[in-house]
């Protein structure tokens, strides 16, 4: 390749300090854009995932559980716990006007003690009626869950074929679920009969808070999908009026707080991203302006030996685009790495569900961020490059002597 065509690359390689400064600027810009976009997207995906996992319009729980906020602690904050009510509630709820699909679940929490492999939340569902957990489990595990078989959340340190012990009873891990970015990643799922067996073991070992319950006739909550067009709040009120001792909680209300926080955090992230982007863009503009003016004499020399205005503009812009693309690529990779490494820490700090978007979306964000930075580089320098290339060569040589 001839020297002039190589000149943009040679300028970058042979002036390493200058190039590194420009690379860093471009990297900051892309890190901000991509990191911000990925964070907002992860929060949104986490929220969507949480909504999907909740799956129902209404959750019916014992009145005392609602008062203690037990349900939200278990479902939203990843704490362990359990509570019970009579299994007759399921039928009573199904009879209420406006309810569609109805399915019950039974909860149990294991202990950080010798009887149990780990302290986790155990959720038992009825495979006959379930419409929330099974569709999700089906994505990772296609088989039928047998008695004493469990499916573990993504963050449980256990793999298919392992044995987990709860209250001295062994369960086989039949599958592992994909990550949801919610507290469900720390839960263990099984058929209701398995959880009833484990509950019996916990009572037998005197390790259950509820010593008098009959595991065969209790449930922890009833999940309700309302009929199409039904007013969810109205149906919830009707359930509370018809079935005694229960609280019907619309799930939208449960996640309203999180949703509000999500909007707030997303807004802050967006504003911060815009401010940092603007600042980095301005700094980039100043740096490029200084660099271009510092090299005016060189450009004039190139013009003297026969480089046309168009070729000079193309050469300088190529150099700027190259450094922006390289810096932007480094920036997005750094942002991606940090997000992957620290997503859980961030999730814990923000107390929000976070789920990285799919590979396709991440790649799209990466490409768009890199292109945005290249465009910023072009925008911040083109005016100066164009002005310098149009300057009279004789004047540029005289002034920059």
């Amino acid at each position, binding site marked *: 390749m*001839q*020297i*002039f065509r190589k*000149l943009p690359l*040679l*300028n970058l390689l*042979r*002036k390493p300090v200058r190039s590194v400064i420009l690379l860093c600027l471009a990297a900051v810009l892309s890190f901000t854009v991509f990191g911000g976009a990925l964070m907002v997207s992860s929060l949104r995906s986490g929220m969507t995932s949480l909504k999907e996992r909740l799956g129902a319009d209404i959750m019916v729980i014992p009145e005392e559980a609602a008062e203690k906020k037990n349900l939200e602690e278990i479902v939203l904050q990843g704490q362990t716990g359990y509570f019970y009510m009579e299994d007759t509630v399921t039928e009573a709820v199904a009879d209420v006007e406006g309810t569609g699909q109805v399915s019950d679940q039974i909860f149990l929490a294991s202990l950080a003690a010798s009887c149990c492999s780990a302290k986790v939340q155990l959720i038992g569902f009825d495979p006959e009626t379930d419409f929330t957990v099974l569709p999700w489990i089906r994505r990772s595990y296609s088989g039928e869950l047998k008695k004493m078989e469990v499916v573990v959340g993504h963050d449980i340190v256990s793999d298919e074929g392992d044995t987990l012990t709860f209250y001295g009873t062994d369960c086989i891990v039949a599958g592992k679920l994909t990550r949801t970015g919610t507290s469900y990643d720390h839960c263990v799922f099984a058929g209701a009969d398995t959880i009833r067996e484990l509950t019996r073991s916990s009572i037998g070992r005197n390790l259950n808070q509820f010593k008098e319950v009959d595991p065969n006739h209790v449930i922890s909550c009833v999940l309700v999908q309302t009929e199409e067009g039904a007013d969810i709040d109205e149906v919830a009120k009707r359930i509370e009026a018809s079935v005694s001792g229960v609280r019907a909680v619309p799930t939208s209300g449960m996640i309203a707080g999180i949703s509000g926080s999500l909007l707030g955090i997303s807004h802050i992230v967006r504003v911060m991203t815009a401010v940092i982007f603007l600042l980095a863009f301005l700094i980039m503009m100043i740096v490029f302006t200084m660099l271009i003016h510092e090299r005016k*004499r*060189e450009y004039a*020399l*190139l*013009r*003297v*030996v*026969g*480089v*046309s*205005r*168009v*070729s000079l503009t193309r050469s300088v812009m190529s150099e700027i685009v190259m450094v922006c693309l390289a810096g932007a690529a480094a920036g997005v990779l750094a942002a991606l790495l940090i997000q992957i490494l620290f997503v859980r820490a961030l999730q814990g700090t923000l107390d929000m569900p976070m789920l990285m978007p799919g590979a396709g979306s991440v790649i799209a964000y990466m490409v768009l961020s890199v292109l945005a930075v290249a465009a910023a580089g072009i925008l911040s320098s083109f005016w100066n490059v164009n002005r310098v290339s149009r300057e*009279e*060569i*004789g*004047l540029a*040589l*005289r002034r920059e*002597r």
Partner: protein
Amino acid sequence: MEVRAQQIRKEYIRTSRDTNILTAVASCDFLIPAGQVTVIHGSSGSGKSTLLNVLAGILHPTEGKVFYDGMDLYAKRDEKLSGFRNLHIGYVPQGRSAVSSLNVLENVKLPYALYEEDGSSAALEMTERFGIRDLCEVMPDCLSGGELRRMAIARALVRKPEVIFADEPTGDLDDENTKTVLDSLRQLAKEGAAVLIVTHEEEAFTYADRIFSMNAGKLSQESCRPG
């Protein structure tokens, strides 16, 4: 190729003096004949570099025209004019002049590289002639003022141009290198090139066929070597 200036005048707009317009070159006709060395001397700010730049096609005159063998130089579009400069004009600018990211050899062969030609052997020959052969791989930052000057002269002459403009070409050079440079310019004139030197150095006068002086933008002929 001869260069003929017809009624050229160059004015600069200035705001810091009593008058807003500075006449750097008063209206004049001027000829740089092929095969001759023409020297212009004068005090600083007399307008000699401005005249040289106008004649070299890198500074538009306020008035007048510059013809190269009858071709109106400033009537050309930038693309064509740039190509013309590359092929036919050698220009040695005043002061330091290097593309800082290219080494000495790359700087010297740059005029060839623009149009996908190699030019390595011609560039090596030039570095040999101006005593910078050993510095081919050295970056301009590491060169002395004299070495940079010789590199700029080698670059200007590497394509054996038909018209050569040299603005203080021997400014940073010792006696030996001054002689080498002036001998080279003289030799190119003998081979048919039109050479214009703007200088303070009286030594250049001995190489000149015609000597002009410039004072406050006004050009006047002082002497002419008998044909």
